[in-house]
C-alpha cells in the first residue's frame, strides 16, 4: 500500500514532468499545426471521396480516429524524450535521488501520461465540438479513458527505451511501431471493412490492437449512430484499462529490479 510520503514523492515526479511541458512551446506549436492540417485539410478532403453508405459520417469517424492517433503519437514521443534523457545522463541523476524506484517509475509514467493529456485536451475538445459530442459526461469519460490509454502507451515506451538505451535505435524502432500500429487498427477505417478484405491475420491484429479499442470506444461514446463495433464499449475500455495497468506494473518492476545507471542490466 502506498504511504502518504510515497504519494507525495510520486506527485513531485509528476510535477517535474509537467514543468517540462512549459519548455516545449515549439513542440506544442508544431503538433498543433500537424493537428490542424489533419483535421481541416486531409480529413475534410478525404471524407469527400468516401461512399455515403458506409454506415457512418466518415468525417466524424475520422476525427475520433485522428484523436486516437494523435494521443498515441504524443505518448510515443515520450520515447524520444526519455532516450534524450539517457543520452544527457538525466536518468542516472534520477536514479541517484532519494526516491524508491517504484515511485520514480510510477511518477514518470503518470507524469508522461498526464502531460500528454494536458497537451491533447484542447484538440479533444475541438474534435468533440466538431462531431457534436461536447457534453460534460462524454468529455470527462473521454479524458479518463485517454489517461488510461496514454498510461499504457507511456509504460510500453518506458519498458522499451530502458532496454534500448540508444537514441538511434529508439528513433528507428518507434518510427516503425508508430506507423505500423496506426495502420493495423480501425483508426482510419471501420473494423468490419477490414474483416471484409478476407485477410484474417490483418483483421485479428487490428482486433488485438489497443488503438482500435480506444478509437471505437470514443466513437461509441459520442456517435450514437455508430454500430460498426466488434466488441462492446465496456469490453473495449476494460481491455484498455487492463493493458494500462499491466504495462505500468511491468514498467515499475523493470525500474525496481533491473534498472542500473546506463540502462537495464
Amino acid at each position: 500500500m502506498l504511504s502518504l510520503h510515497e504519494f507525495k514523492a510520486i506527485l513531485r515526479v509528476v510535477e517535474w514532468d509537467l514543468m517540462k511541458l512549459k519548455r516545449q512551446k515549439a513542440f506544442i506549436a508544431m503538433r498543433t499545426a500537424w493537428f490542424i492540417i489533419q483535421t481541416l485539410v486531409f480529413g475534410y478532403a478525404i471524407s469527400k471521396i468516401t461512399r455515403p453508405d458506409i454506415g457512418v459520417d466518415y468525417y466524424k469517424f475520422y476525427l475520433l480516429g485522428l484523436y486516437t492517433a494523435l494521443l498515441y503519437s504524443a505518448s510515443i514521443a515520450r520515447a524520444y524524450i526519455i532516450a534524450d534523457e539517457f543520452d544527457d545522463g538525466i536518468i542516472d541523476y534520477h536514479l541517484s535521488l532519494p526516491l524508491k524506484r517504484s515511485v520514480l517509475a510510477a511518477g514518470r509514467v503518470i507524469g508522461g501520461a498526464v502531460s500528454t493529456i494536458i497537451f491533447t485536451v484542447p484538440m479533444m475538445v475541438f474534435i468533440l465540438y466538431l462531431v457534436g459530442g461536447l457534453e460534460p459526461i462524454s468529455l470527462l469519460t473521454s479524458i479518463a479513458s485517454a489517461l488510461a490509454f496514454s498510461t499504457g502507451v507511456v509504460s510500453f515506451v518506458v519498458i522499451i527505451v530502458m532496454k534500448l538505451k540508444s537514441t538511434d535505435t529508439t528513433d528507428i524502432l518507434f518510427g516503425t511501431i508508430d506507423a505500423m500500429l496506426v495502420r493495423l487498427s480501425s483508426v482510419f477505417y471501420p473494423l468490419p471493412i477490414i474483416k471484409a478484405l478476407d485477410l484474417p491475420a490483418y483483421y485479428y491484429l487490428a482486433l488485438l490492437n489497443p488503438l482500435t479499442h480506444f478509437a471505437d470506444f470514443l466513437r461509441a461514446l459520442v456517435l450514437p449512430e455508430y454500430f460498426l463495433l466488434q466488441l462492446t464499449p465496456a469490453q473495449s475500455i476494460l481491455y484498455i484499462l487492463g493493458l494500462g495497468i499491466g504495462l505500468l506494473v511491468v514498467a515499475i518492476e523493470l525500474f525496481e529490479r533491473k534498472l542500473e545507471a546506463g540502462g537495464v542490466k
Partner: protein
Amino acid sequence: MSSELRSIAIVAYRDIARFWRYKYWLAGQVAMNLADILIFGLIFNGVVNKDLIPDYVRFVTPGILCLSIFISSFSIGREVGVELRREVTQYLLTLPVRRESLIIGRLLGGAARGLIYQFGFLVFASIILAPPSPEGWAYVLATSFTLALTMSSVSISLSTVTRDFNMQATIRSLTYYLLFFVSNIFYPQRVIAARLGPLAPIVDYSPLTMATNIYRWAFKYDVLLNPLSNLIGLLVWGLIIVVVAYKLYLRNLLRD
C-alpha cells in the same frame, strides 16, 4: 576540379554505404510502403466513392512513389541530426575535403538513397499501372532525381536547425504532413477545389502535386496532364530548396 569531384563522390559513397547498415529499418520501410499500397489502397477502395475514383489503388500508387523518395531521402537527415548531437560534425569538418564538397556530397548521397529505394516501387508501379514510354521514363527519372535531391536537402537542413531529438522527430512528421496532405496524392483535384475553395491553388503549386502529376502521366493513369509544366515547376522548387538547404547546412555546420 577533378579532386573536388572525387571528394564529392567519396562523401556521397560513404552515405550510400551507410544506407545498408540499416537493413531492418529498410525492410520495415519497404513493408510499410507496400502495406500503404495494398492495405490502405485496398481498404480505401471499399470506402471510396467509385464515381470519383474508380480504383483507389491505381490512384494512390504514383503518390506512394513520392512517399518512397521522401522516406529514404529523409533517412540522411536523421543521421545528420545524430551527427550534430554526437559532435561527429567536428570530425567531418577536419577531413581534407572542402566544406562545399562535403555538403554537395551529402545532398547527392541522400538523393542516391532515394533513387535506390524507389527503384523497386517504380517496377511495382509499372505492374499496377502501365509501363511508361521511353519519353515517360525520361520524365520519371528527371522527376525522381529532382524530388530525391529536394527531399534530402530539406531533411538535412531541417535536422541542423535543432539538436533536440524529440524536436527533430516532430519537425520530420510535420514536414511529412505538410508535404503529403497539402498535395493531390490522396484526393483528386476537383475534391480539393470543392473542399478548400480559394485555397485550392496552394495544392496545385506543391512540389509533391507536381511530381505526382508527372508520375500519373508517365504511368498512364492520366494522359491529359502536362508533364513539362509540372517538371519546370518542380525544378524551380528544387533549385530554391537546394540553395537554401546548402546555405543553412553550411551555416549550421560552423555554428558552435
